């Protein structure tokens, strides 16, 4: 009773917000429609700003940064509404989840500095996070070198993450090493954040978050082994814990692969069946993403409300916005429906 009362406002909000999500059939139907017809069907889906901008531009492709930012701002608006209704550690977990975008900005700044790009160039590539901004972007952009950026980050909520980055940078003056250290620390921090939840909440959240971590680990592993040709031990070390199907024993085995087709036989059936037809890392990524969306959609249909519903909504919304982004881009570039479906990971 108390729990119902505790989440009453959040539950109402998620129920209303869920109406903004498209089911599989609705989304597939969109692929075959011209953009002029798609836009009216997306009314009342919280995308008014994007529709207005596209209409004003007479269905011309907006600059890449603008388009990305428009979709992200939709997600951030939803996240802000959800976070506002939470307090304490629950609020902290959601804020930490949104901080992934700040982590992306940190990586952009670090890369920009290592490539000696101008401040303006780097600034144009940063993701504006509005109310969620905590990075002193100007100060970081004015730093002389990577070491100084990491020192400055130690004065932000990214202090512990940056400290590990600094250590890695001291060892090997390489941005890739810092980025992997930052990723590693981010997910270690996320696992730490989740530990404060009750066992029941953790068990509800774990399948969804675990699937996201599985996807992240598998894609990283494939890139490290097949693209960067890192050693099995090195590739394994750079992965993070907390996966749902892919535990450390399976990841150790997976780290030995040298070709993509070796992968399928080593994976548990639950994942193996999802990606058995995939011929590239990108396809693996899209297939797993589709599974995550599907799982998040199922969670939203669960009758007993929990914090996980809010998390599932955010995950679903983020992934679907990303698919819509790809769809719009494809339509505006006049790609064929098949090409668009392929890019989104759907098959017509």
């Amino acid at each position, binding site marked *: 009773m108390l729990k119902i009362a505790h989440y009453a406002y959040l539950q109402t909000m998620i129920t209303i917000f869920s109406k903004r999500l498209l089911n599989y059939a609705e989304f597939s139907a969109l692929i075959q429609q011209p953009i002029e017809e798609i836009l009216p069907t997306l009314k009342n889906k919280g995308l008014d700003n994007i529709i207005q901008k596209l209409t004003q531009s007479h269905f011309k492709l907006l600059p890449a940064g603008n388009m990305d930012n428009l979709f992200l701002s939709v997600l951030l608006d939803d996240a802000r509404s959800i976070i506002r209704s939470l307090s304490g550690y629950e609020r902290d977990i959601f804020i930490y989840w949104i901080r992934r975008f700040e982590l992306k900005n940190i990586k952009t700044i670090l890369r920009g500095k290592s490539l000696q790009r101008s401040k303006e160039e780097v600034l144009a590539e940063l993701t504006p996070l509005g109310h969620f901004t905590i990075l002193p972007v100007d100060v970081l952009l004015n730093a002389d070198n990577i070491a100084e950026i990491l020192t400055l980050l130690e004065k932000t909520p990214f202090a512990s993450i940056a400290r590990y980055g600094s250590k*890695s940078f001291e*060892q*090997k003056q390489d941005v890739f090493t810092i980025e*992997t250290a930052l990723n590693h620390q981010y997910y*270690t921090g996320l696992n730490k954040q989740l530990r404060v939840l009750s066992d029941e909440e953790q068990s509800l959240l774990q399948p969804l978050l675990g699937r996201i971590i599985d996807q992240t680990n598998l894609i990283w592993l494939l890139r490290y082994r097949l693209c960067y040709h890192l*050693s*099995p*031990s090195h590739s394994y*070390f750079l992965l993070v814990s907390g996966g749902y199907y892919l535990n450390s024993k399976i990841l*150790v085995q997976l780290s030995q692969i040298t070709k993509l087709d070796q992968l399928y036989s080593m994976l548990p059936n639950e994942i193996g069946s999802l990606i058995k037809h995939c011929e590239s890392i990108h396809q693996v990524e899209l297939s797993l993403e589709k599974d995550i969306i599907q799982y998040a959609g199922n969670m939203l249909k669960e009758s007993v409300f929990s914090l996980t519903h809010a998390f599932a909504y955010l995950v679903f919304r983020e992934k679907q916005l990303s698919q819509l982004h790809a769809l719009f881009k494809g339509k505006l570039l006049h790609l064929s429906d098949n090409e668009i479906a392929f890019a989104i990971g759907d098959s017509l």
Partner: protein
Amino acid sequence: MSLFHSETMRYISLFMRFDDAPMASIVLAESGFFDPSRASSEDERFPDSQGVVYRRIFNNTLSEWGKISQYLSITPVEKINKLITINKHRLLNVESRLNEIWSTCSEHKENKRKLDEELNSLMHLFSLLDHFRNLDIDLSMLQQDFKFLDVRLGIIPLSYISRLKEALGIEGYYLSVYVQEKDSAHVIIAGVKKNNAIQALLDSASFQSLHVPREFHQHPKTVYSTLAKKKKNILEKISIHEFEWSMLQQRFKQEVLDSGDSLTLAKPYAILSEKMLRKGQLIQINGWVPLSKMPLICDILDKHIANPVIIESREPEPEEHAKTPSYLLRPQWLQPFLKLVTNYGAPGYREFDPSWFFTLSYVLMFGLMFGDAGHGACIVGGSLLTKKKWPEYSSFFLAIGLSSMFFGFIYGSVFSYEHILPSLWLSPMEHPMLMLKLALLWGACFIVLLNIVSIYNYLSNSQLKEAIFNSRGITGLLLYTALLWSIFELSREQFSSLNLLSVIIPLMVMFISQWIKSSGPAAERFLVSLFETYDVIIAYFSNTISFLRVAAFALNHSALAIALFTLAATANEAGHWAVIILGNLFILLLEGAIVAIQVLRLEYYEGFSRFFTAEGYLFKPMELSPQKLKITESS
């Protein structure tokens, strides 16, 4: 003793035989009233090669003596008992002996440095050994380069341990933690040697390699006991060294003290030799002496110099006043206030000495701004308790403490309590407007008084025009008093044409005076004169307003007390008293310091800047004190 001036000084010239110069230097220094001066007439001066050599030997010897007395912690005696001259040969002997002593001391010092270095490196090894203390193997094994085995020691962040262990397992390596700290762990990694396959992995894991020092070639426990033995050995050597040091101190103490005496006696001549004039066997020594001490100087020269000495003395010429030292003979208790005055600058020879005025006004204003019987009593108590340790500041704190107590009774304030003591006159918080008016009145009196002093200074220096027309002269004073009078009449709504006239006349005089002083085209002169005159009015206005801070701080003290009691009321009984005590301590230290600085600011910027040129220099007589030995600077 002149209360508001330097003592009257005499410029004296002493003519004597060259042989008598060393003894004359000593007795003049011993008198403590002779400030040597270079003669003004350069053409009569001959090069004094004897003096140059003497001063060089003196400085070298003093440098050696300084090093020895510092190393052996020998404090010189306070006073010289026997006045004897130190000639060049004797000074050379002292220098040679001090060189020998320093040679022994420096060797000893070097030994100590080596021992300290040994001890430091040993302690460093101890801290390194800490990294390996939990390993149960012969550390020499970790120094070997095995043919098939790859063994590494290092530190990694704690959060990486389990994943690194698993990752290394893929490569057939084994990881073991032997020391765990807050954020990191010391690990040993071993495996079959392959082409440095794990290096990239270790780099990603922020692995910091640890190298086993050469000294560690046994089991950690054995290494520890070996190091402990070495440490004991070094500590024994250090204690022997300390004993040797005390022996050295005993052995050389008397010689060092005697050398210090010799140097003290040599110093006056080393100083004077640079300033004296010589012509054949005749020398001339010039300097400043207070008029009251002239008989003393004549007397001691007569007593100690066998040959005749001609003493010529005269008053300083008006044009010499700028070069004449100011001798401010003030009682001991006034010295801390005098230090604050001279910190701004020394008064010129004929200039008004503001020490007394500064003391009285500083003490008065401090009490007005920080009136609290309890806090004042604490300052008085503190000054009495620390009198032995800091005697030179005792009277300062005593005076401001008493003033604070006095005004505490006037305001009825004790330890921030405003209602325990009945106020003898008024409580600032209850009469804020009156306090502000009083502060302005005090400021006006302060400025008027200092303007009068300024006029006096102009007249003393025969600057009649400045005394009449300057903004700090009679015209300025008339303008300021007229302005005050007019504002007063305006507040009573009785402003008359007489008031207007009283302001306009001095303003016109000042404007014309500025016009005469300025140069350039008429329009430029008009503008300069206009703005200069306008600036005078603004300066007088802002100076007077500045004194509002006297009342502001008195009110601030009461306001802080209210804040303190409001805070205390929110706490329980124990907390209440803790807040009261800590709050009072806070007020005493922080507000007390701020008030002290604010009063000083008022004195310096609203007071001294109005009349005090502070371009003089203080009378610095030669002294015969072994404790004040320092190298004489050659010009």
